[in-house]
């Protein structure tokens, strides 16, 4: 087993403290010690270093209880701001957030030709043209599936020689900040489960789109199903509000749930998809499931609308922020 050096242990513990601070909403040192299982003196020493480096700050909330004042620690806004880009065909949605994940601004830029250089120029212009007190700390790029499939490349030229690099590499090279990328669909799945507070439950998330995509979370861990349980059911998806067309889809879904339940004892099933999926569709699915689950417990079926752009931007920004802080601690972009 590899032995950890002093610095690695320190960095590891600081990351643990930071992750705890990021997951909570303002924690005191003593609460941090309880949650991280580190000794209070270690927490005090490590947080002092983080305070000195400007990564965290005392939020100033001092609640006087019976004993000493309670000082909350939060991530420092002075670390910079985050940019989350959602890239779809013909349009880029830019959300700017503080390190505390407060939305500072949102902007929509229409681009006629969706080539990498145009996207890069538009994003660079946005960063350079809007002066901010804090520096840029990190960028998150969320591609809509079709755009991601095609790949977005930017030309890097020295005048003599040129090469195509990814948008992620171009932004990382230009702004020297961590850049994370993901597809909108892949991100939404894990985000919804996390936001619904279902980490500890057996949850199936079924995304209806051009394909039906199933992600399972069993006992807090993600289970990868063979081929993601992907089936092309696009022909069965309703274009409009509930109709007879939905019935074959409902039956297939009920059958799928039956198989999944037999294998994983699901507590909850989250169904997400087109906005046109109605409550009526849900009722029909519940009815169909009831007839199949004749014995014992049956899973709760919840219809979720795809999150608003701002909400998912905040969720993704949390990941970008975690990466930024890790980079700040470890030094690698």
């Amino acid at each position, binding site marked *: 087993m590899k032995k950890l050096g002093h610095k*690695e242990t320190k960095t590891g513990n600081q990351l643990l403290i930071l992750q705890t601070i990021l997951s909570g909403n303002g924690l005191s040192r003593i609460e941090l010690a309880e949650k991280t299982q580190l000794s209070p003196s270690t927490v005090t020493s490590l947080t002092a270093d983080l305070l000195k480096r400007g990564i965290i700050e005392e939020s100033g909330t001092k609640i006087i209880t019976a004993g000493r004042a309670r000082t909350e620690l939060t991530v420092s806004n002075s670390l910079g701001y985050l940019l989350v880009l959602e890239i779809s065909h013909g349009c880029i949605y830019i959300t700017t957030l503080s390190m505390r994940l407060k939305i500072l601004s949102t902007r929509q830029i229409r681009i006629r030709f969706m080539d990498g250089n145009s996207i890069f120029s538009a994003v660079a212009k946005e960063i350079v043209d809007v002066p901010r007190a804090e520096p840029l700390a990190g960028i998150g790029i969320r591609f809509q599936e079709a755009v991601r499939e095609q790949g977005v490349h930017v030309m890097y030229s020295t005048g003599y020689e040129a090469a195509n690099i990814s948008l992620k590499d171009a932004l990382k090279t230009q702004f020297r900040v961590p850049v994370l990328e993901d597809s909108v669909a892949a991100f939404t799945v894990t985000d919804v489960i996390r936001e619904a507070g279902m980490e500890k439950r057996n949850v199936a998330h079924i995304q209806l789109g051009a394909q039906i995509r199933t992600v399972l979370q069993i006992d807090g861990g993600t289970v990868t199903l063979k081929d993601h349980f992907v089936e092309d059911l696009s022909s069965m998806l309703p274009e409009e509000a509930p109709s007879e067309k939905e019935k074959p889809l409902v039956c297939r879904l009920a059958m799928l749930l039956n198989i999944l339940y037999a294998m994983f004892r699901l507590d909850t099933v989250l169904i997400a998809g087109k906005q046109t999926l109605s409550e009526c569709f849900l009722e029909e699915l519940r009815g169909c499931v009831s007839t199949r689950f004749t014995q014992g417990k049956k899973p709760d079926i919840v219809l979720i609308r795809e999150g608003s752009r701002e909400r998912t931007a905040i969720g993704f920004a949390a990941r970008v922020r975690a990466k930024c802080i890790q980079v700040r601690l470890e*030094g690698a972009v």
Partner: protein
Amino acid sequence: MLQGTLIIIAFLVIAALMMTKKIPTLLALPLMAVVICIIAGVPAVGVDADGKAIGWLQTVFEAGTVRMGSAIMAVIFGAWLGQIMNKTGITENIIKKSAELGGDRPLVVTIIMVIAVALLFTTLNGLGSIIMVGSIVLPILVSVGVPAGSAACIFLMAFSTGLTFNIANWKSFSNIFSLEMEQIKSFEIYMLIATLIATIVLIIVEFKKNGIKFAFSAPTGDVEESRQLKGVTGALAMISPLIPIVLVAFLKVPVCPAFVVGIIWALVFTSKSFKKSMNMLTKSCYDGITDAGPAVILMVGIGILYLAVTNPMVKEVLNPFLLKVVPTGRVGYILFFALLAPLSLYRGPMNLFGLGSGIAALIIGLGTLNPMAVMGAFLAAERIQGCGDPTNTQNVWTANFAEVDVNQITRKLLPYLWALAVVGVVISAVLYF
């Protein structure tokens, strides 16, 4: 005589246009080829007495596009494997595991990083891979106390060391010099050893000059745990870059099948599911072709220029000039090519990925020098171009990332690279005269 003078003027004008960034290399090479043919009086369209096409449109332009066909395919298959290594986390894991091996000894960390980077660039190609590797390696080097400027130079030298044994490059050289891959390998082995020694000398000099500021170990925590390769399968996956080299260099397997074996090997030992592997295979192929794009179009130009300068009518015009200039004796050869080696910078006439490919073909065509000696001279000069040329995308990117001036990298590396080129020319003179 007039034709020869005009061709040399055209060459100088096009070289000047290229060096002043007026026209890109990919345009300069076919343009040079066409201009040479027109001046030498090669007809655009025509047939000889046997009905065989002799026009430059057919024999130079059309035929030239596929002249480097096998090298183009080697670059594409190599880039495909490179993409798979990047996407499956093999590249990242090789670097991070190497950094762990170095522990808290900066010199050891640096040398192991050099070996890891060299190993990776025996297979990887393209700026995307430079960014992938450089954005991990450079911060590690800086974190162990190597100043950014020195780290950039060490990284580029390590890259150049690996490039010596890049089999896709061997295939390109094999096409340019019309030699067997085995002959290229026999010389590149010496260049590999010499480049590695030069890199180690550079490291020692830089360490002595700068001192070691910090003595703690490099941070090695994985950013994305899911990409961590563990256990026996992880270890097997990490030898993926060695598979094609072993197959080509020792088992004489052709280049493209060797890369395919490497691709399958990497996929098998990193595979999570069949469907995912198939998606990865397809996506990495497309991305690999994108990565290889600049090299492919350059090779099309090289192929066209090669056929232009080897056209009998052109050779007839240029040979009297070259016979006066190109040395035939061993000492003359060493002096001539050792002094001219820096002309591989700024896309100069010794640059094999520029007009140098045409000049090499012309010199071989003279028949006064052993083709192996010409290969040795140009591959020695290629050492300077590979990581010293400030017009390379890899040099500009590395300089930007390390926040140093790109010309400062060239200035710092030139003494080492020139010495390396001289050693290469001397080895070539000893071996091939």
